């Protein structure tokens, strides 16, 4: 009996080796690049489908991980980077000096389409898309509990919402950080911290993920989940009875940037890909999927407007100072944790 089992082991080992070998050969083909991205999986599939039409001879292998997972992975692999391009990744993470040092300045064709304030002055990255903070408010829960519909951050201080609001923990979620960073920037630090203290009284949970607050509000666990607009739109499309509320003070936001790895040994192909990311076709797709596109061109899809996104996004976006957000991150998180996370 034991020999029977051993045979099975060897067979599976051999099978595994063969598969791995095939995978390895595929990766080594001439015009293929590896791209790391944090674009969500459905967006990514649509982008890639469009790209394959335009660049049929380029094989793009994409690894999708969340912003934080990717940050850790890229830093850990720094000694021998495995990717050629970073695509659609939070600017607040991109400006980490340890990351910027790995990038090679490159100005793709059509770079002029991207307004200068969305580009690294040294040309190492450029931001084409982004996302912004929004509340997911469950209509059924509001009705059951007789609560009013909030329209701003200020409204959330109303004691009627006590224990009914959840937001992401800024120490573990980029979405959480962009929300408190926007509040501190628009109100100034002193008033901003006062506001966060008042908000804390109504807060049921600081959830350690950026999308989960919207998901739990969608399921009716809480009335209000501070999250981001695209999550709200997708959950509305899924059929959940929620309303997307963009805070009237202005929505905090994060941009997603692209950059070329200096370590890439296939830079021509990588550059072709980056050029494509600013092509008309790519911009069209961005408009189909993203609430913020920094390049003019396409138009906002109808289901975004139906979900409550205004046509003029600029009017509801708060003009974030990303450099400030990045530089003060450690200090702000430390203060936030000591005030709101002390057990």
């Amino acid at each position, binding site marked *: *009996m034991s020999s029977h089992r051993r045979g099975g082991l060897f067979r599976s080992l051999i099978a595994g080796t063969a598969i791995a070998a095939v995978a390895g050969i595929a990766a080594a083909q001439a015009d293929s690049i590896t791209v790391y991205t944090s674009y969500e999986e459905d967006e990514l599939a649509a982008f890639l489908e469009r790209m394959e039409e335009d660049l049929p001879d380029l094989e793009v292998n994409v690894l999708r991980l*969340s912003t934080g997972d990717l940050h850790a992975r890229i830093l850990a692999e720094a000694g021998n980077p*495995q990717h050629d391009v970073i695509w659609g990744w939070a600017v607040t993470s991109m400006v980490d000096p340890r990351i910027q040092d790995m990038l090679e300045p490159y100005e793709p064709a059509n770079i002029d389409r991207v307004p200068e304030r969305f580009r690294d002055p040294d040309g190492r990255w450029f931001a084409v898309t982004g996302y912004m903070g929004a509340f997911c408010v469950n209509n059924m829960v509001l009705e059951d509990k007789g609560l009013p519909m909030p329209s701003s951050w200020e409204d959330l201080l109303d004691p009627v919402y006590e224990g009914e609001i959840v937001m992401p923990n800024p120490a573990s979620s980029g979405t959480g950080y962009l929300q408190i960073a926007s509040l501190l920037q628009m109100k100034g630090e002193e008033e901003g911290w006062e506001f966060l203290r008042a908000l804390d009284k109504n807060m049921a949970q600081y959830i350690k993920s950026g999308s989960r607050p919207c998901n739990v509000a969608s399921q009716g666990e809480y009335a209000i989940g501070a999250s981001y607009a695209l999550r709200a739109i997708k959950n509305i499309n899924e059929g959940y009875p929620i309303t997307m509320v963009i805070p009237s003070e202005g929505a905090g936001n994060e941009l997603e940037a692209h950059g070329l790895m200096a370590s890439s040994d296939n830079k021509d192909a990588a550059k072709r890909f980056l050029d494509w990311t600013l092509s008309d076709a790519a911009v069209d797709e961005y408009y189909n999927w993203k609430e913020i596109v920094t390049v003019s061109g396409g138009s906002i899809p109808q289901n975004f407007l139906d979900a409550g996104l205004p046509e003029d996004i600029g009017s509801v976006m708060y003009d974030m100072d990303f450099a400030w957000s990045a530089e003060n991150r450690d200090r702000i998180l430390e203060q936030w944790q000591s005030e709101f996370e002390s057990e």
Partner: protein
Amino acid sequence: MAVSATTAGTGATRKTNHDRMPMIVASLLVGVPLLLFIVYPLAFILGRSFSTPEGFGFDNYLSMLTTSRFQGILYNSFEVTLVSTAFAVIMAYAFAYAVQRTLMPGKNVLRIVALIPLFAPSLVQAQGLVLLFGRNGLINRTFGTDIDIYGYWGIVISMVLYVFPYAFLILSTALAVTDSRLYESAKMLGAGPWRTFRTVTLPSTKYGLAASVFVCFTLVITDFGNPMVIGANYNVLATEVYNQVIGQANFERGTVIGMVLLVPAAVAAILEKYISRRQYSLVSDQSRPLVIVPDRVRDLAFAGISAFIALMILSIVAVVIFASFVHLWPYNMTMSLRHYAFDVQNGIEPLWNSIYISLMAAGLGVVVVTASAYVIEKFKSPVTRPLYFLSILPAAVPGMVLGLGYILAFNNPSNPVYLIYGTLIIIAIANVYYYHAQGFLIASTSMKQISGTFDEASATLGGTRVQTLRKVTLPLIAPTLIGVAVFFFMRSMVTLSAVIFLITPQTQVAAVSVLLLEDRGATNQAAAFSVCIMATVVGFLLLVRLLLRLAGIKNVSLIR
């Protein structure tokens, strides 16, 4: 005491020159891979924890460990871990006792149910708890109650369910074999059932108990998934590692906590000496297997306890399966298959990758942990204790930390392991070593029960160690080994935390597909994909069983 008659001088130390050579070879065969795949990556992690802007120093430790916030988190971690461990081990002992020592009905089904948490993607448990016990969950809506699952008790409940099968596997092994003469003697001496349990059963499973406490303790203290989903604002060490490494890309602080988490493993390694010193070998050349006599009251009582535990595990999985088939839980409960139209990257191809990885991990895992257990149990040498420590060390390492260590150590063209970096093989190896402690403790619990008298008898009859191993030891522990293989297979199908650092575009696995779907908000599709993974595992077990039957191998239980 009656038992002392069978107490074996474990190890049967006969240190002749003839014996030394195989001991050295065997220790190297077991020790070198452990050093390569555990210690070497951890050395990089250790290095990071001492790396400061001013160079090597203790600043990271000082600035982390002295804050009152950290001490609060430390306290939280221990509180939640000790309570969860106590619940899980007591429940698992009762369940394992019911399976191995009673004649309760429905054993085979209950065994599979006990193992469900091992092959349910972590999403299932988290989502199931919220669907059942959330503020808008099934219980509250049905009974109009006001249960709030989030926080301390939520973590405890989810942790108990998560670690229960690990404890069950070890304790089931510990209770599987015994010598009926012990029980006959106890009866003759007039001991009642409780006294027999206290003086015979409990002491004979002492090592299994200690091993399961260690496994549960380390699993709970290193898990961040459950506290993240259901812990609300209750922070523990593992979520703090996540905050630092993933939330803030601060490896230095994350690795400091990673190092703190190794302390329980060190403590356990020291305690093991005292616990196993008086472990009795239960199967000796003269022992007779226990014949379980029917006892209606006992059988029904244990059937009740087991059914209750099984129901808890099942209800959580069942509600997720059910939710995956309704249009939109809880707002539109009409039946629908729409969540099963998987429009995710590569479709179900990652499921195949997972199956290959799991098969490799099962085969490799059995060989590796059996070798470790054999060398540690049968060769007493100066390296036995270090080898034991290395064998259980991985349990104390959070998967995220091990994954980082693998990148730092092996993503380097001058390292020979780089040849398999980025392949399915390295993922399988990472799984084997990530779960090494649990597999090893199941195997060694089984091996400890085999008396050294077999080795002596075999040697007297002119048999070599290899012959004894092949003809005596392996056949005796074979059922356990199949269980170990099933264990590695099940975990490899769903584990995520270390794997996420090792996947490449070409080596996507099923658990990552679940994550991709969940991340993009398609929670119900993610649940449906999880259901497919669970169905694959169950289907696979049935297939293997069928093949064994066809091959004429009967009486082999895949799940011990």
